[in-house]
């Protein structure tokens, strides 16, 4: 490719960039097919939902947080996952219909949130904010998620 070609390509990218940056912020429907996340109502009097919230743009650290969180939950709470007392949900907050989660839980980045439900009603929730600080130490990360989940599972409201 010639020098002019490279420059023209770069200018084209800049133009696309400016156009995209100037566009209003709207919720995207990823690949045009992703549906909003629905959590089936529970017949149980009490259950815990562990949400991993992400956006369409997925960074390496975000994928690690999702993988570690899932591992922490699946390795320690297999029985609870099986009988529905604990539910693991991955949600893209940029998909149309999911935007309310940002407001519901005051989200500001990819997050792991524990929610306590009593007969289908949310009674308590917690954003596990330390996941970002513990990302470099997998053992502490897993312990942190499990230690936070246990009291939620034991809670009776």
């Amino acid at each position: 490719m010639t020098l002019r070609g490279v420059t023209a390509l770069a200018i084209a990218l800049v133009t696309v960039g400016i156009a995209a940056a100037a566009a209003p912020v709207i919720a995207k429907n990823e690949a045009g097919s992703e549906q909003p996340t629905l959590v089936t109502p529970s017949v149980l009097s009490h259950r815990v939902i562990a949400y991993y919230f992400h956006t369409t743009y997925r960074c390496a650290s975000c994928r690690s947080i999702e993988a570690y969180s899932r591992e922490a939950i699946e390795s320690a709470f297999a029985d609870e996952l099986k009988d529905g007392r604990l539910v693991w949900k991955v949600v893209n907050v940029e998909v149309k219909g999911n935007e309310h989660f940002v407001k519901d839980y005051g989200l500001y980045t990819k997050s792991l949130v524990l929610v306590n439900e009593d007969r289908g009603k949310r009674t308590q929730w917690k954003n596990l904010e330390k996941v970002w600080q513990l990302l470099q130490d997998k053992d502490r990360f897993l312990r942190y998620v499990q230690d936070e989940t246990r009291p939620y599972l034991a809670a009776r409201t």
Partner: protein
Amino acid sequence: MTEFLAAGASALWLGILTSISPCPLASNIAAVSYVGRRVAAPHRVLLAGLAYSLGRAVTYVVIAAVVVASLLSVPSVSFFLQQRMNQVLGPVLIVTGLVMIGWLRLPGFTGHAAGAFEQRLAGAGIPGAAGLGAIFALSFCPVSAGLFFGGLLPLATGSHSRLLLPAIYGLGTGLPVVALAVLLAVGAGGIGRAFDAVTRFERVATRVTGGVFLLAGVYLVLTHIVGLSI
């Protein structure tokens, strides 16, 4: 006093954690090459590095002040900075890179004016580094959002140090960049002096910096605008 020192150390560590994560890699590489390109004078690299870190610190102090004063909500500020600033930064880096390499002349600048402007852009030392730090700090990624809004701000509010701790955090985010830039400059300067070609090394370094800006800009456009997963 001990509590404040502990909070300061935590803020610094949160800043370093932000900087060494893979997410801001593209802007960090661009910053290292910009700050470290004065291979003939390592002390200038150190000064540029400090200016870069101060620029970052100013941005974080301003954002903290805006959020703490509840002028804007944390989610709206955070998502805006993560989405929009990376989209803006890509094109800005591409244009700056093209100008630094000399492949693009900015409209409105012709002849001597263009030459002088481009030379200023390529050669801008301390103020340029501070500006770069301020702009790069604005382009939040998920890690910086998680550590700044979820780690630093609660720490700053709890310690009643809503401006100093964000400033320390900002300096922390610049530290790894400064250290790497100084090491590279000392190494490259040593090689340049061995071959008696430091001035030529600096000219090459400026063009390399332009190339790095161009690549980092293309990367940001592809990941944050086109939506490719690289």
